[in-house]
């Protein structure tokens, strides 16, 4: 595969535009300072942005790089959250252990479920993954050991140490971001992209599609699961309606698409923009914020069909952008 083809597939290479990635790394460094200057509510807002970003990275790996559009990644987020809750109810009070268990359980679950589900293609795969998410939520809602629909309360650290959850989420997001970067540049990443571009051709080249797809989904699951594992103690209470919320399923997908699908910078930029805008709209329009939010998503999809990251690689300014829109519409 030559450089020109890669440029066409990803935007400016398999990891996306390098300037965009550098900007994102810079923003991540800035975010490290949030708890020092904005303790409390603002910290929670940015922690949620980081959480969505981690989930978006998870989705990007299977949906963006491998080309399998999953509507079920919220299942891993939920399973991760419940891993924390189970450990917490057994007296374990260590976020690192929460995350490790969640990643292990989610990877195992994705591998087991992926074995049959990843044999499906296109729409069928999407529907099957949605089914998986709904089934997991329903099973947990009916398990009384997991609190059923009533949910589980988790012990939280006190207010003075509360930033612990922020830093934990920051690390999860950084891990997901760098993980995506290195995976994309490795043989693994090329295999994922090969499957996305033409699965049959990939098989002819000797890539075991099923195996690589399972690996992609398992890694994807680990990212979402890790985010869930930190979310649970940070929120202090989880139930199926919180952990398997439609928002947590749809937002990461929309964020990735808005930011730039199949790039390393895209999920973070999408998460920052969408979650940030949602927050600001909520603040200024108490009642109509959902309306503006919807309108904003539609506008971005119409005006930037290739995602925001694409802007970083655009040559020729506004004129080129307008031209690209015409091409898109034709």
């Amino acid at each position: 595969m030559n450089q020109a083809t890669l440029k066409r597939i990803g935007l400016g290479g398999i990891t996306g535009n390098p300037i965009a990635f550098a900007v994102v790394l810079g923003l991540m460094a800035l975010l490290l300072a949030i708890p020092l200057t904005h303790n409390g509510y603002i910290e929670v807002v940015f922690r949620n942005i980081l959480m969505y970003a981690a989930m978006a990275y998870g989705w990007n790996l299977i949906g963006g790089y491998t080309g399998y559009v999953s509507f079920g990644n919220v299942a891993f987020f939920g399973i991760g959250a419940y891993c924390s809750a189970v450990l917490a109810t057994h007296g374990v009070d260590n976020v690192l252990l929460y995350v490790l268990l969640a990643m292990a359980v989610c990877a195992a679950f994705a591998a087991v479920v992926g074995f049959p589900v990843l044999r499906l293609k296109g729409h069928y795969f999407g529907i099957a993954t949605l089914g998986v998410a709904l089934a997991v939520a329903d099973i947990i809602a009916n398990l009384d050991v997991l609190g059923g629909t009533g949910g589980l309360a988790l012990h939280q650290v006190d207010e003075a140490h509360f930033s612990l959850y922020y830093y934990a989420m920051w690390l999860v997001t950084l891990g997901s971001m760098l993980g995506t970067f290195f995976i994309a540049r490795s043989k693994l990443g090329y295999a994922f992209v090969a499957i996305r571009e033409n699965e049959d051709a990939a098989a002819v080249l000797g890539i075991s599609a099923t195996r690589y797809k399972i690996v992609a989904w398992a890694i994807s699951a680990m990212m979402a699961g890790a985010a869930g594992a930190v979310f649970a103690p940070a929120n202090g209470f989880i139930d199926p309606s919180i952990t398997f919320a439609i928002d947590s399923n749809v937002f990461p997908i929309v964020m990735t698409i808005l930011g730039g699908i199949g790039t390393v910078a895209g999920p973070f930029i999408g998460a920052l923009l969408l979650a940030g805008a949602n927050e600001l709209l909520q603040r200024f329009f108490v009642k109509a914020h959902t309306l503006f939010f919807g309108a904003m998503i539609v506008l971005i999809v119409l005006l930037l069909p290739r995602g925001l990251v694409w802007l970083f690689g655009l040559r020729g300014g506004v004129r080129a952008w307008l031209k690209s829109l015409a091409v898109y519409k034709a």
Partner: protein
Amino acid sequence: MKLRVTAALGALALCASLAAPSAPVSAAGDVIVFGSPVSLTGNLTKEGHLTQEGYDLWKNYVNAHGGIKVAGKSYKVEIKYYDDESKNDTSAQLAERLIDQDHVNFLLGPYGSGTSFTVAQIAERKKIPMVEGNGAAEKIFNQGFKYTFGVLSPAKRYLEGILEMARAQKPAAQTVAITAASDAFSQEVAAGAAAYATSHGMKVVYSNKYPDTATDVSSIISALKQTNPDVILNAGHLQDALLVQKGLKEQNVLAKAYGYSVGPDTPDFANALGKDANGVFGGAQWSDAVKYRGAPGFYTSAREYAKAIDSTYHHRADYHNAESTAACLAFQYAIEQAGSLDPAKVRDALAKLDVTTFYGILKFDNRGLNVYKPMVVNQIQNGRLTTVWPQFTADGKPKYPTLAWGQR
């Protein structure tokens, strides 16, 4: 290139504007600011609006009558609202914003048990007292929280009154079917009703739950119909009550009594169902027939309160209005008794509060729950909500057994 710079600058600007502190709501001067994330959109919108009305009615009354007196000084009242979209985690996040960004003095509860639970956690961590009138699940009060107080009777009591009433009628009800939404509140309501029934010699012939987001419960209703129960109970909210009552009519399910935990009391129930709403029983925290004599400082009787709701919002006073107002009243009396706006002092005053209001007694057990106030049973008779149980507060007799569909 220009676009690229714009994009990068845009991202930075967004970060900055999020991180920028918003000005506190409290204007200069003597104002006590309350904050509340309520359901202004989402599946609990109707109930959320009734909650807001209850809060606002109190605010307007207090401000028109000189405000709250704290150590000899009068304070006006302000309430800052956000829309929690009826989502538990959003509600908690907004509570955090109200405390950290808007610097509210105290929290008034959101609508619903799930949201109240997550907000209670924030109140506890930030040590800001919350009084809530709309989260009846006992789970909230079994966590050892010190800063959350609930003015309502616990969830398990919601349907007990209907069963008590049905047992006392002729012919006495002997069997009961219970359907319940899957949320924490509804599950506690259902469990409470089932426990009451079995401990009083009634038989639970059918019991099932459905997702709280369900829009079709017809399969549950046809299964229920097979068991031919005397009393049909639903533990849920307004949307559930409408769904079940319509379903029962469609499948022509006949019972001696139909009871709901939430629904019949809200004005929308009778509006939506017309004649089919007649005969339906609802468990209620309050009705305008209750006969308490309230302490001075607010409307002292249920009738006066109901009149105020009617003239301000042009609908009949609903118990969600009343319990929300009651939450405000708990704050009003506690703040006056504390003689301070210090959160810890107000919390202590709330824990010691013992005052009778138009809504009933406001007094909390050591968990913060008001177990001292009884509930009432209302029935829709000829389109009008009538309190029928317990007998000493009733303003009408229960119409029992309920007539067949089409004759109501």
